[in-house]
């Protein structure tokens, strides 16, 4: 058997988890603002360290996790996530509480994921989306934003504004997005209204 070494998890599971959670919390509470995250994780490519930190902080045996095609085709990614979180990795997107997306341009429709029910809108998926850079070009409004906020990230699907508008129209149902890029995390909760800037 080839001995492949598993990449390390958090140096300090308690405080590193807490820091990553606080980043995610502020990211969703202040949509569009890029919240800094510092992590020493070196996950197997194409999983980026920021997205890995979010998954290690938030997922466990209770949270089915879905990986997009780019991540699912690399077995080391699944091994890394399973070992450090214990989360079951599912192939049916609808079952997932968390979804990890490494190639946002090809991401499936939001309606492929759990949207919650009118009685339990919280039973919906959180999408952790890897991006290469935070840019601009979009204008956000909604809870958590004082007036308006400029935001953008790349790469995202070409029709991201239409997708997010559909997601907003479902409120209080819908999915929540955490965008993980170099050194930062930004949130697009279902409550946010997105327009072209």
């Amino acid at each position, binding site marked *: 058997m080839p001995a492949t070494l598993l990449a390390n998890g958090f140096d300090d599971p308690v405080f590193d988890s*807490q820091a990553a959670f606080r980043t995610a919390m502020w990211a969703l509470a202040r949509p569009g603002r890029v919240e800094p995250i510092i992590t020493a994780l070196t996950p197997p490519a194409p999983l980026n360290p920021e997205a890995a930190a979010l998954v290690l902080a938030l997922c466990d045996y209770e949270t089915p996790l879905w990986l997009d095609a780019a991540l699912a085709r690399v077995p080391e990614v699944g091994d890394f996530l399973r070992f450090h979180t214990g989360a079951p990795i599912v192939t049916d997107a609808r079952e997932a509480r968390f979804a990890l997306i490494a190639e946002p341009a090809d991401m499936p429709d939001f309606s492929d994921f759990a949207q919650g029910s009118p009685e339990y809108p*919280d039973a919906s998926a959180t999408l952790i989306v890897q991006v290469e850079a935070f840019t601009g070009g979009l204008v956000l409004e909604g809870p958590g934003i004082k007036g308006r906020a400029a935001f953008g990230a790349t790469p995202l699907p070409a029709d991201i504004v239409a997708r997010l508008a559909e997601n907003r129209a479902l409120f209080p149902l819908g999915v929540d997005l955490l965008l993980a890029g170099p050194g930062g995390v930004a949130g697009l909760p279902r409550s946010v209204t997105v327009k072209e800037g």
Partner: protein
Amino acid sequence: MNAHSVGTMPEITYNFAYLDEQTKRMIRRAILKAIAVPGYQVPFAAREMPMPYGWGTGGVQVTAAVLGPQDVLKVIDQGADDTTNAVAIRGFFEKTARVATTTSAVEATIIQTRHRVPETPLSENQILVYQVPIPEPLRFLEPRETETRQLHALAEYGLMHVKLYEDIARHGHIATTYAYPVEVAGRYVMDPSPIPKFDNPKLDDCPALQLFGAGREKRIYAIPPYTKVRSLDFEDHPFTVQRFAKPCALCAATGVYLDEVILDDKGGRMFVCSDTDYCNGRQAAGHRGEMAGEPPSSRPVRSAEPVSRDDGAPFSGDGPGLSRAMLSGMTIQGGDQP
């Protein structure tokens, strides 16, 4: 003999902030969904805490899940830093998380509160954690959880308006004075916890993140920063807050929430700030209420001759005045609080 000498107990250590890591993850996931759906009550698997229900177990669990080693924690109980609930919870986190604590509303990064919002305006990086006894605003109108859940799903809040209307029919005005229902971000009607309605306007467009935890009822809900929070009312009976006839007797503050303090059995009473940190800050800055006396430095040097105090009055005009420590032994009636 081993290294531990006979008679010394092994030091009991806890995981950081008492809760185990899986519990924290579960609570953290609930907090994220609560923020994404402002005002919606997210069910969570509240744990038994080393304190009874009704003593802030929900708030404590939310604080424990959010808290980090760099945080500075403030805990208030009806506005006061020095009452039982506040002292106990502050001590709990000092022991289990060894975080810095403060009584200053400005220095704190996390403020856990029972039934008040600080008078000092909150800022962007602060988190306000409310202790909530009954999170469901419709519970006393509709006891069945299955029904209230559906009413929220349908945004059917007519029942709540009927309740407020019945107040008007019976009393001529909306007589609900605490736990006054609010509508969050134009969608969910939410119980702001039993804060006086005086504090409701502070929830609207607040720069801080507001988290609500109900331990016995196992619910977490949230208001993100800069979110529209509207107190329910009618066009011809608009929402108004309590007014006080006199300023604080200790710091002369106006436009703040005051507690009534009974001074004797002859009808003597005074009204003082419920927010002790705010009141102490104002007194330190030189503000003097009518019963505060003179500050020690400006007090005239007195002769050794004893002052006659045979009139039985609780204070003489030139006495040292009342302090918070003296008040703590007296009966405090929190206005129209439960």
